[in-house]
């Protein structure tokens, strides 16, 4: 009996020796990998790709090579989550000013405008915008076919069926920017999360397109908001003929919102109780 025990133990010994030898003879794994492994533990692991890398681990590898990547390609989910952010800060030895980087996406279009005809085709904004710049009179307005809703990892975007435009819930949005890339009309913009007023129109410099004049719900460049603001928080952009906001001066008084005759200015959190979620995931 002892013989067999000895033999079997020897088998174990051989196995151990083999592993040991393999370990010794093969080149050591690069240190960056271990670091990446560590970093990736603080990442959300959703592999959403919003950071611009194919997946969280790829992002982690990039981060472990150069921590500045965190600022150029920020992962918005990490930014929202204190424990993850803390972990990243610690493992990468970084200091992150969260507020400065925190963004919200807003749809810069405030409503349905007339249609130029009956669009019959593929029901995505990308396709619809390929033909005559979209079937809405405004060649810049939201088409409301919801391409953006599909990419949002937070399910923050829904389609307002009344106005036929996309609406983003600022409370859910993490500012990852995926929707910005998705929208073929480039009307989703990332604005600082502490913005008070949102200018919801994209119809700026290009004007006077016959048959495609600016829509009923868009900015008419009347400058009333500019005049209404008593704190100089609005700067009038002469070239584009639109208002711009100086956050530090805005006191959230709402005067400009009141003043706008076209309701193009709104608060970041609009009352969307009427909104019906139809097209979100």
């Amino acid at each position, binding site marked *: 009996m002892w013989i067999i025990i000895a033999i079997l133990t020897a088998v174990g010994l051989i196995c151990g020796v083999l592993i040991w030898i393999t370990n010794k003879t093969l080149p050591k794994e690069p240190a960056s990998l271990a670091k990446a492994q560590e970093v990736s533990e603080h990442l959300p692991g959703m592999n959403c790709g919003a950071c611009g890398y194919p997946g969280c681990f790829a992002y982690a590898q990039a981060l472990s090579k150069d921590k500045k990547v965190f600022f150029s390609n920020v992962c918005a989910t990490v930014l929202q989550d204190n424990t993850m952010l803390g972990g990243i800060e610690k493992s990468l030895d970084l200091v992150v000013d969260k507020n400065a980087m925190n963004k919200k996406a807003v749809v810069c279009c405030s409503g349905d405008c007339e249609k130029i005809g009956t669009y019959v085709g593929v*029901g995505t904004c990308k396709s619809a915008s390929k033909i005559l710049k979209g079937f809405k009179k405004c060649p810049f307005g939201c088409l409301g076919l919801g391409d953006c809703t599909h990419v949002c990892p937070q399910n923050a975007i829904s389609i307002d069926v009344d106005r036929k435009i996309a609406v983003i819930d600022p409370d859910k949005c993490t500012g990852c920017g995926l929707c910005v890339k998705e929208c073929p009309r480039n009307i989703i913009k990332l604005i600082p999360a502490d913005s008070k007023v949102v200018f919801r129109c994209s119809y700026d410099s290009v004007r006077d397109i016959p048959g495609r004049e600016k829509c009923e719900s868009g900015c008419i460049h009347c400058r009333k908001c500019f005049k209404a603001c008593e704190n100089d928080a609005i700067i009038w952009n002469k070239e584009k003929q639109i208002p711009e906001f100086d956050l530090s001066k805005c006191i959230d008084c709402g005067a400009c919102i009141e003043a706008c005759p076209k309701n193009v200015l709104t608060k970041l959190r609009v009352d969307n109780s009427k909104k019906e979620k139809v*097209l979100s995931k």
Partner: protein
Amino acid sequence: MNGTNKENITENNAENNVLDDSKVSDTTVGAAKDNIIVRDNNFISQSPHIWRGISSAKIMYIFLASLIFPSVAAVYFFGLRAFWVMLASTATAVLVELIIKKARKKRFKMDGSALITGLLLALTLPPRIPIWMVVIGAAFSIALAKEVFGGLGHNIFNPALAGRAFLAICFPTFMTQWYLPGNYGVDAVTSASPLSENFIFQGTNMALYRDMFFGNTAGSIGETSAMLIILAGILLIAFRIIDWKIPLVYVATVVIMSLIFGEDILFQVMAGGLLFGAVFMATDYVTSPVTGLGRIIFAVGCGLITFLIRRFGAMPEGVCFSILVMNGFTPLIDRYIRPKPFGYMKPQKAKQAK
């Protein structure tokens, strides 16, 4: 990512854009741009602006029409009983599809594919199978082999065959009881199907072939008459509903294998469900490859496996299983068998050229 939503949108959009003649509003805008007319009744769409107009549903119904041949033969050979089997199967298939579509809040479109599935399933069953089993089989076909995948066009496996295989494994006793055509009575005697172990035919080979050609043998209710199936197949090919490659290559493979292994060729071709499967089931668009070469590979695979099972396997018949097995290979074939695009050059060659 999300096919569901997109479909919704398209539908939605179509509804939003209903053609409403009352909305024809001529609006004249602007001075410099006088007589610009914006009309709601203007269509805008991408090219092409014309369409051949043979819809999927039309194809399905033509296919269904060709199935009348074996169906009528089934009633002729096996009596009303065969009719009830067919009715139960089709009705269940359509009903289950309707229920699932409703439960998923999707539009139910009567496009005939469920009818085909139901009818084809029925035609592959033995004539005296209890009706409740037919119902289970048809429900399985539609629910677990078609609709779970997303419905028409998305399924991987041929629903009718999956249903048949399910029944064959579930209720082997019932699925292996064959009857000779003609005796409709309650106490009809079982008989062996030509491919069965204990099939003994008293008579000349010629008589056997004749019986098999016209359909006077035991077998599944739709598969017995070689003549009608060939006729339907020729019609389907002529109307360009099915691709000639699959049935022809399938049968040819079996013929070649029979030659190699010294089997009776005519018998192999006409016995069992080979013709039926080759014409009606292997040709299902959804579950077979889309390219010509892919289809040939698919058909050769079907033929080889059918022969393998018939000759070496325990099952007397291999058509059902072989098509199902090849259905499994279809995505792989489609992935790797692709036509070379027009003017394709190997990457290095292209570089050299530049």
